[in-house]
């Protein structure tokens, strides 16, 4: 089972910010419906750059989205207060929180929210000592966070580790270190899940789409089972459906054939 978090409802995208400022419900509903129809299993809600009224914006966005679709939400914010508002209003399925890390303040403020809302949690492989570079750096944080979450009663099945994808343009080994991290997490903690945004991998390089698409396939091969992405991008979704079939995770190739009949595969 793959988890696809639709990333389009984010006020750092100018069109969404404008819709939010004008309280244009139709624009937000359109994004929610299109992502749900394209196969999003979660819809991300991020208004972190509305620094003066994030909580109010979160409330409006969550209510607007849920007036049109019944897909669970991934509440995405640097502010624990905004997370609290979004999670409190989530009505369909179990919500997801993006994200917790081992930065002290972040961990302490987000952990109670996981418990309070029985939420699934995106776990960022990062602590207050800085950005990890190697797979080993990441595994140190993974072990620490897994232990702490486990002790707090969070089930492996509810943890979605984000290996922290960085651009290969600035550090050439950024891709391979992520692949190695997935392999290690998969072997040490077989029951946890993964979540990551991919587009960072291609920052600073031309023709970003091809890098993003191949990295989906590479990470899936190592066991990645969750992505934050634009599900209305047919090419990405076609890659995912096809990779699933090739990896033996598509019974009777049913998903692949269905995608063919719907025209997704081109």
């Amino acid at each position, binding site marked *: 089972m793959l988890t696809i978090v639709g990333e389009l409802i984010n006020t750092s995208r100018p069109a969404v910010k404008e819709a939010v400022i004008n309280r244009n419900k139709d624009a937000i509903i359109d994004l929610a419906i299109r992502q749900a129809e394209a196969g999003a299993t979660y819809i991300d809600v991020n208004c972190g750059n509305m620094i003066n009224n994030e909580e109010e914006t979160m409330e409006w966005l969550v209510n607007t989205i849920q007036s049109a679709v019944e897909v669970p939400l991934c509440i995405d914010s640097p502010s624990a207060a905004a997370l609290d508002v979004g999670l409190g209003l989530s009505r369909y399925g179990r919500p997801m929180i993006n994200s917790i890390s081992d930065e002290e303040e972040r961990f302490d403020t987000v952990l109670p929210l996981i418990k309070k809302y029985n939420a699934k949690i995106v776990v960022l492989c990062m602590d*207050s000592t*800085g*950005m990890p570079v190697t797979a080993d750096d990441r595994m140190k944080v993974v072990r620490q966070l897994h232990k702490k979450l486990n002790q707090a009663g969070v089930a492996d099945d509810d943890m979605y580790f984000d290996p922290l994808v960085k651009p290969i*343009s*600035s550090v*050439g080994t950024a891709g391979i270190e992520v692949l190695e991290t997935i392999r290690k997490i998969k072997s040490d903690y077989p029951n946890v899940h993964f979540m990551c945004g991919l587009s960072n991998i291609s920052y*600073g*390089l031309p023709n970003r789409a091809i890098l993003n698409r191949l990295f989906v396939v590479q990470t899936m091969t190592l066991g990645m089972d969750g992505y934050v992405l634009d599900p209305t991008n047919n090419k990405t979704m076609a890659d995912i459906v096809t990779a699933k079939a090739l990896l033996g995770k598509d019974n009777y190739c049913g998903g692949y054939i269905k995608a063919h009949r719907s025209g997704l595969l081109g």
Partner: protein
Amino acid sequence: MATLQDVSQCVLEGDLDGIKDLVQDLINEGVDPILIINEGLIGGMNIVAPLFKSGEMFVPEVMESADTMNEGMKLVKPLITDEDVPSKGKIIIGTVNGDLHDIGKNLLVMMLESRGYTVIDLGVDVKEEAFTKAVIEHQPNIVGMSSLLTTTMMKIESTIKQLIADGVRDQVKIIVGGAPVTQEFADDVGADGYSDDASTAVELCDRMMEEQCKLQELGV
């Protein structure tokens, strides 16, 4: 015979192997080391910068060019004293308190150095007081602050307030940047400049230094 133009071409191409022989040849020919730096090595980066800005060159190529320049610098630097090293100005830069993101900042550091600035990189998660301390210690012309998160963006404001409280604000120009930062925000928190990418940030520093020079000439 090697020429200064060969050196800048070599930097442009990011030819890490070729640069050493080329620079050594020029040194052996008796070419002024300062000239090798300014017109050869930095000269090469001055060709790279606009190509990067216009999208014809990409981040890894710029890094390769900068590394090539630095390889050449290693040979030239021992031949001159620190005072001889031409500097366009001194810049302190850091990612603000609570923020660990440094990809953009590092890119800017590299581009400023290749433009001929002396850069003191304070790293990430730089506390407000650490900026003050660095200003007092290094007496820079410009202080740069970066923040990638909306949560830490406010630390730009608190850092500027700290600089004011410590009485060092007016000694420096302050420039700010990072994904959530806007010109409007920069104006609100009382920064002197904002740019949305590394190339324009270098141009911004150039303009600020030119202004400072003019003011000095006028005796202000």
